[in-house]
């Protein structure tokens, strides 16, 4: 019986730890991370984990980092966040949109702990938000796709109909339209951030329907690999995925969170941390394009020029005139979309067929 009891205690302890993996020892400021997927997804979570490693590299003598992976968006998230706060973490990055409410709830319970919520829009005194202007990268992808696609049909694997994703689809089409005004995009919603099977299914279906370029707003490499199987082109997502499809990837949007994470951790250490909203793009180096590969050199040059123009601010991805699907003008000629419109974007631009799911 005694042995059984011990086993039970050990099991319980393991369950309690909830997969928390910690590196280094005490006396250091603890910084925690909540991940939606595994760091090995080579997409969204991988990019955040790379940034976490940058903190360790730069500030490893003062800071120790912890991450909890695969935390579902919902009640479990609050428990995981609170667990990090309880175990002495002073700064906690919650790295998915769906952690917004759980983060705010946990922040209320732990006023001394600072929180950083990615891609959200609700803040508190101890909750800052941050995001990157990925749409700039989508615009570059659109330019490339408009030039490279022979069938004129692009397959777009989307996750959830939230402004972040809708904005990406619109930016992609704005870029594509500059090269091919008749280009079509087929959007498939998989209602998941990370479900390799479904992402691959979606890619296959889109290719079955004639798409010859696949782009995705989901986190795994499955769609890219499915495209590689059929010998067509695709874009990587969140990190450079070229190793998974050396002959397929045209480029990838790389989420470069590292500099931001290091700066915020430094701010925590010297006491200057304040709740704020950060939305940086290519200009600040938060969005980086992977090398332009598997395309003719003139397309690569065009992509590079678009990238440079966006980076230096010479070009804005949402430059008017832009009409919505009903033909109503939403951005006037010569103007650019303001951040309010971008942040709440819930409509398709003209030229996209199909309806936004509600």
């Amino acid at each position, binding site marked *: 019986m005694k042995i059984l009891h011990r086993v039970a205690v050990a099991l319980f302890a393991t369950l309690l730890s909830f997969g928390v993996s910690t590196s280094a020892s005490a006396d250091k400021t603890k910084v925690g991370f909540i991940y939606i997927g595994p760091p*090995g*997804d080579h997409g969204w979570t*991988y990019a955040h984990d790379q940034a976490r490693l940058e903190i360790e590299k730069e500030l490893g003598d003062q800071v120790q980092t912890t991450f909890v992976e695969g935390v579902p968006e919902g009640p479990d998230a609050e428990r995981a966040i609170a667990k990090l706060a309880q175990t002495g973490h002073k700064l906690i990055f919650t790295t998915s949109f769906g952690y917004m409410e759980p983060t705010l709830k946990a922040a209320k319970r732990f006023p001394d702990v600072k929180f950083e919520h990615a891609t959200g829009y609700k803040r508190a005194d101890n909750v800052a938000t941050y995001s990157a202007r990925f749409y700039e990268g989508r615009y570059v992808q659109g330019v490339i796709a408009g030039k490279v696609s022979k069938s004129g049909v692009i397959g777009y694997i989307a996750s959830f109909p939230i402004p972040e994703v809708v904005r990406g689809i619109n930016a992609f089409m704005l870029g594509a339209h500059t090269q091919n005004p008749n280009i079509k995009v087929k959007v498939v919603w998989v209602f998941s951030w990370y479900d390799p099977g479904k992402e691959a299914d979606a890619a*296959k279906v889109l290719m*079955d329907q*004639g798409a010859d370029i696949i782009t995705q707003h989901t986190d795994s490499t499955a769609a890219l*690999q499915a495209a590689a199987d059929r010998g067509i082109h695709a874009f990587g997502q969140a990190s450079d995925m070229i190793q998974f499809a050396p002959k397929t990837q045209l480029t990838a949007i790389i989420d470069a969170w590292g500099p931001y994470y290091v700066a915020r951790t430094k701010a925590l250490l010297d006491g200057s941390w304040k709740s704020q909203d950060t939305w940086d793009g290519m200009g600040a180096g938060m969005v980086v394009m992977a090398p332009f590969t598997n395309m003719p050199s003139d397309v690569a040059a065009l992509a590079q020029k678009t990238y440079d123009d966006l980076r230096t601010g010479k070009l804005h991805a949402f430059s008017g005139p832009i009409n919505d699907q009903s033909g109503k003008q939403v951005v006037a000629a010569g103007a650019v979309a303001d951040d309010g419109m971008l942040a709440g974007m819930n409509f398709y631009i003209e030229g996209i067929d199909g*309806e936004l799911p509600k």
Partner: protein
Amino acid sequence: MLDLIIPSMMTMMTAATPLIFAATGELVCEKSGVLNLGVEGMMLVGAVFGFIGATVTGDAYVGFLIGGFSGIMASLIFAVLTLLLVSNQVATGLALTIFGTGLSALVGADYVGETIDRIRPLYVPNAADGPNVIQLFLGHDPVVYLGVLVLLACAGFLSRSRWGMILRAVGDSDVSAHAIGYPVIRIRFAAVAFGGLMAGLGGAYLSLAYTPLWAENMSAGRGWIALALVVFASWRPIRVLFGAVLFGGITIVQLNAQAIGLGIPGAVMSMLPYLATIVVLVLISSNATRIRLNAPACLAQPFRPER
């Protein structure tokens, strides 16, 4: 139009293959009177060990076999518990699924994001020529054909062979079969192991051919669909084949409908296999003779040999 239909049908067939494997195995298992709800767990175990096997040996086919073998191992846990220790089959099966989900996540953690050389199709037409009808028959990978062959072999085995009849007898009346002198427990052990082998192979197909990577929980409910499929097919192997194409195809049709621009909510489509199963269950129970014809009478009943 042909350009759309042929690739869609191909995609549906690959979606059906893991279901064909898992459901055929479960069907044989249930025909012997054992209900193993651990299919999902065994598939995940097969998927992860198959993937690890392929990574280590560098050969996807070796990985496929390892996946099947690990499925057997997982099913033997279930067999020992339910057949020798006579534990409740439903509870043990559920436990096996939860165990398999956790074990596969633990073992596979280091293999997330790895790449392998996947199981490849037999025949790939020249991309420039577009899809053609030959591709429909020869364009799959070998595992797809293996799945159909095994299913047909099981159909023949159950309906025509002596041992198939004995297996059904054990499932219909374990006490009588025991009284005549058949080794009920041993036969059920073999049936459960076969179910494990098939679930393992189905899982390995997912990680080695369908989406050639390992991801936690990648079977995404296919084990449950396979269980529903056995009932849907009212324990007839040939119907499993059609059901698998139908159930596997629903996801593909759903995504196709979206890409075409039909506004059917995805959640409704993913409910359909289960709704269809409920309808079949109602049909079965409305007609008592149908139950007697196909459903194993001793399904999920514990059996203790008295002498």
